[in-house]
C-alpha cells in the first residue's frame, strides 16, 4: 500500500537539489568549452567576448559573409524525420492543416464534385519515394476527396495547387466520349463480348441478309433459341428486313457467340438509329453481361466446390 508522504515537499526539494547539481554540470562545461572550440581554432575565429577576462581587448568585427557560409550542424530536412516516412507525413500534415483552415467553406455533394484522377497506389508510392502502406494511402485520399468537395467556385488557390500535385499525369476524365457514327459507306461497325466470345458486326441497310463467319445464320446456329437471341436487337425493333449484317465471331461456345452477336448488333443499330436507345435498353440487348467463368482455386475441386469430406 502507498504511504502518503507528509514531507513530500521537502523530498521534492531534495530531489530538485540533487538533480539541479547534475544538470548544472554540463551547462558549465559547455560554457567553458565555448572559449576554445575545435571549429574556432581551425577556422581562426576569435574567442567570444562572453568568456574572456575582464581586461580582454574588444573582439574584431565579425565577418558575416564567412560566418554564414560556415557549416554548423547536420540536421534532418523534415520535422518528421524520425517517423521513417517523412515525406508522406509532411504531405498528410499539410493536407490536414489545409482541411482545418478551410473547413468552413461550403461544400457540394460528393457526386457533384469535379472528378479527379488521384495517384494510384503504386504511382503514389513512386511519387513519395517511401513504402507507404495501403491504409495510410487511403486515409490521405480521403482528405484529398474532402478538399475536392469544396464549392468549385470558391476553392482557394493554395488548395487548388496542392490538389493538383496529387493528380496522376494525363487527366483520364478530360477525354470526352465520342459518339461513333456510320462510316462513309453506310456501315456501322460494332463489337460485342459475352463469356469467351468476341463478335464484330458490320451493319448496313439492306434486305435482312445475315452472314456469320461466311455461313448463313441457320448453318452457324443449330438451335432456334440461339438464332433468335443473335438477332434479338433487330427482331425486337422490327427491323429484321431493313438491315444486312456481316458478322465475324470468335471464341467461346454457341451460346456465348450468339449473345456476343446480340450485343454487337445492338450497338451497331444504335449508330444507325440513336433514337432506339430506350427500346434497345428495355429489350436488354445493349446491357453488357460482364460475367466470366470464375477461376478454379487450389484446394477446391472447381471454383468453389470443396472435395468431399472423408473421415480417414
Amino acid at each position: 500500500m502507498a504511504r502518503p508522504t507528509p514531507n513530500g515537499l521537502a523530498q521534492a526539494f531534495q530531489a530538485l537539489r540533487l538533480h539541479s547539481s547534475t544538470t548544472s554540470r554540463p551547462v558549465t562545461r559547455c560554457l567553458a568549452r565555448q572559449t576554445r572550440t575545435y571549429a574556432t581554432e581551425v577556422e581562426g575565429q576569435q574567442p567570444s567576448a562572453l568568456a574572456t577576462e575582464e581586461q580582454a581587448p574588444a573582439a574584431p568585427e565579425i565577418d558575416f559573409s564567412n560566418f554564414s557560409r560556415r557549416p554548423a550542424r547536420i540536421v534532418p530536412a523534415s520535422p518528421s524525420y524520425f517517423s521513417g516516412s517523412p515525406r508522406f507525413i509532411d504531405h498528410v500534415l499539410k493536407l490536414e492543416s489545409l482541411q482545418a483552415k478551410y473547413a468552413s467553406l461550403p461544400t457540394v455533394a460528393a457526386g457533384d464534385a469535379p472528378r479527379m484522377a488521384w495517384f494510384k497506389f503504386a504511382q503514389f508510392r513512386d511519387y513519395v519515394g517511401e513504402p507507404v502502406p495501403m491504409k495510410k494511402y487511403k486515409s490521405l485520399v480521403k482528405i484529398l476527396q474532402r478538399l475536392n468537395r469544396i464549392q468549385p467556385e470558391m476553392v482557394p488557390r493554395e488548395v487548388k495547387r496542392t490538389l493538383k500535385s496529387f493528380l496522376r499525369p494525363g487527366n483520364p476524365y478530360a477525354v470526352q466520349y465520342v459518339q461513333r457514327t456510320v462510316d462513309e459507306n453506310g456501315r456501322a461497325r460494332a463489337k460485342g463480348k459475352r463469356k469467351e466470345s468476341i463478335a464484330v458486326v458490320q451493319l448496313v441497310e439492306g434486305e435482312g441478309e445475315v452472314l456469320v463467319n461466311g455461313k448463313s445464320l441457320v448453318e452457324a446456329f443449330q438451335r432456334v433459341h440461339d438464332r433468335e437471341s443473335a438477332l434479338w436487337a433487330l427482331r425486337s425493333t422490327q427491323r429484321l428486313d431493313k438491315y444486312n449484317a456481316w458478322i465475324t465471331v470468335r471464341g467461346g461456345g454457341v451460346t456465348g457467340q450468339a449473345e456476343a452477336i446480340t450485343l454487337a448488333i445492338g450497338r451497331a443499330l444504335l449508330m444507325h438509329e440513336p433514337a432506339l436507345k430506350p427500346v434497345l435498353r428495355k429489350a436488354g440487348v445493349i446491357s453488357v453481361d460482364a460475367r466470366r467463368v470464375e477461376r478454379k482455386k487450389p484446394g477446391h475441386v472447381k471454383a468453389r466446390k470443396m472435395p468431399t469430406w472423408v473421415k480417414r
Partner: protein
Amino acid sequence: MIVRKLCMRQSRQLLALNRRAPAYSRFLSTETPVETAVQTPAKESPAPAENPLHQVVQASRESRKLKPRQQWNELEKRRHKFNTLGSAVQESYDPEDILRNPPKPSDITLEMLLAAGTHMGHSTSRWNPQNSRYIFGIREGVHIISLDVTAAYLRRAAKVVEEVAARGGIILFAGTRKGQKRAVVHAAELAKGYHIFERWIPGSMTNGQQILGHCETKVVNALDEELPEFKVDLADRPSVKPDLVIVLNPLENVVLLHECGLNNVPTIGIIDTDADPTRVTYPIPANDDTLRGTSLIAGILGRAGEAGQKRRLEMAAEGKTDYEPITARQLRLDPLTGLPPPGSELEKGQQA
C-alpha cells in the same frame, strides 16, 4: 350455425367498422379541449412589402439566386454582425487554447496543472513504489500526485529543453497515443524540433542506417540556413540521432526509451504513478492519461524550446555559437574511418 347467434356475434363488429377510433385527447394534452375565444384578433395584414417576415422570405429567395460566393459572403457578414451580440463570457475553458497558444514555463501555476487534471494518478494497487516521493496522498483508492513536485519537475524539464535548444540540439517530441498528434506536432513546430505521433519504428536509432537511411538530411549554418554545397558530403553518413527525447507516454514507448538508453540520449517523460521513473532521465510526475494534461505539458516544453531557439539565433546573429559547430573539414572526411577520401585535395594536404 344458428343465424341469430351469428347476427349477435358479428353485428357489433359490423357496427364498429364505421366508427372512428376513440382518441383520448385528454391524455395527450394538458389543455382543456374547451374552445376559447381568440384573444388577439388577427390584424389586417399590411402591404406585403412592409411585412418583416415577407422581407425575410424575399431575401432568402433572392439569396437562392445568388452565386455561392456571394451567398457565402452574405452569411459571413451576418455571422460577423451577430457574433458581437450577447453577453461576453470572461473566463471560459477552450480546449483549443492549450493547443494553439500554450503557456510559457514561467506561467506554470498549480491551478493550471490542477485544472488540466495532471494530479490524478492510478489506482493504488497499480503503483510503482519508486514514485512514492511524488505522491501526495490517496483519494478514493487513487493516488494523487503532488502538484508542487510536478510544477518543479516540469520547470526543470523546460529548462533542459531550453538549454538543449539553445545549443542546437535535436529535440524529438514523441506522443504516440491517440489524440496527442496535434499537441506533439505543434510543440515540435514551436521548438523547431521533430515529432513522432505514430509508432516508433524499433531500431530507428540502433539500426538507423537501415530505417532512416533514405530520409533526407541537410547541412545548415549557425543561422539555420541550408548550405547546398555540402549536400555531396552527406552520402553514407550515419543517420541523425536526437539529442533529447520527450516522451508523453513512456509506458507505450518502452523500445524508444531502451534505444535512447543504449545511445546515451537523455529523455524527458511524463511519469504516472504506475510508470518506472528510472526509465527516463528527467521524469515529470503527472497524469499521462489526460489529453489536456499531456498537451499542456507538451505545449510548455515546446514554448521552452522556442525560447532556446530564439536565444541561439540571436547569438548566431552576433556571430557566436553556444555549441561546437561541425567544420567543413569534418564533413569532407569519411564518416566511418575518419580519413580523407582517396584522391582528394585533403589527402594530399595530409601527406604533405
